[in-house]
């Protein structure tokens, strides 16, 4: 073996020891920069669902971390220096004159890693409707929101992604003896918030002095009509027969 080969082999071994035996490779984590506060990073990606249900990527958003407004950040962006642990993040921004908000995202940041949080800004909130029939809490409710039948669900009924604004709710339930119905209009739903409504339903019967039964039928132009869509107004019904 020539001297040159021996020198080259020693150089390789030396370099190997230098990088792998006596220390970490460049860029590899060794110890936290500050042993008392271990930091990670947070990649925030935000999309916005506008009033036409179109998904938009805003160029900047306001970021609220653990209740503190950090400021207006570019979107997407990576926030550094986030202490390791559990955090809560909200985001919001103005768009076309309206405020869009996210729900609260809870996530965990690990030291020296990047945690990604995908956030959606909407104009919607959550509506929880609880209803009693007399002194009984029915197991299930038929829920109508602004005239749209959402279907049967457990009581309380949880409607998610309810657009921000004022709404009208009609709920009904049936037991072996009696139909029940309750409704309320002017329910204000705030974006990214939960609104709770408690309703006391009335027994339904076709006689004077009782809550009217809901009925539905189609008109000659193909439009569906439902009485419960008109609770809150005086209603005049005129029944007639051909024969």
């Amino acid at each position, binding site marked *: 073996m020539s001297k040159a080969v021996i020198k080259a082999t020693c150089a390789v071994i030396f370099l190997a020891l230098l990088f792998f035996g006596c220390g970490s490779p460049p860029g590899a984590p060794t110890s936290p920069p500050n042993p008392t506060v271990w930091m990670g990073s947070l990649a925030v990606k935000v999309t916005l669902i506008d009033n036409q249900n179109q998904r938009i990527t805003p160029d900047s958003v306001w970021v609220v971390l653990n209740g503190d407004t950090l400021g207006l950040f570019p979107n997407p962006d990576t926030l550094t220096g986030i202490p390791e642990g559990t955090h809560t993040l909200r985001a919001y921004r103005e768009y076309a004159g309206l405020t869009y908000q996210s729900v609260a995202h809870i996530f965990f940041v690990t030291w020296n890693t990047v945690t990604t949080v995908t956030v959606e800004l909407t104009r919607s909130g959550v509506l929880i409707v609880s209803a009693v029939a007399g002194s009984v809490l029915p197991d299930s409710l038929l829920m109508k929101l602004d005239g749209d039948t959402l279907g049967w669900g457990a009581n309380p009924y949880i409607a998610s992604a309810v657009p921000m604004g004022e709404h009208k709710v009609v709920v009904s339930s049936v037991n072996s003896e009696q139909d029940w*119905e309750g*409704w309320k209009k002017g329910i204000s739903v705030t974006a990214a918030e939960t609104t709770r409504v408690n309703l006391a339903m*009335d027994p339904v019967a*076709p*006689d*004077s*002095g*009782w*809550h*009217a*039964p809901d*009925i*539905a*039928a*189609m*008109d*000659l132009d193909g*439009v569906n*009509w439902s*009485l*419960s869509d*008109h*609770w*809150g*107004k*005086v*209603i*005049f*019904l*005129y*029944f*007639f*027969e*051909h*024969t």
Partner: protein
Amino acid sequence: MTALTLNMDAGMDWLLPYRTQYNLHIPLLHHAAAAFERFHLGRQWQTVAPLYILIDKRGVIRHRSFRQGSVTIEELAQLVAQLVQE
């Protein structure tokens, strides 16, 4: 206020010319037999159409007529006005 007319037994071939003949602008609902039944109307309940029902803003039935002429137009207008003002 919402005003609806409901027919239980006629088809479109009769109802469309009827609407045109009387120049009706309020919604005319057809095949409303189920609605009729829900209000306990009809011969089995000793009530014969034409008849009307007035419902207040709370959704409570306030007046039911049981035959044509049981209430005059003037009385009916008074009842409606009273419910609208409540």
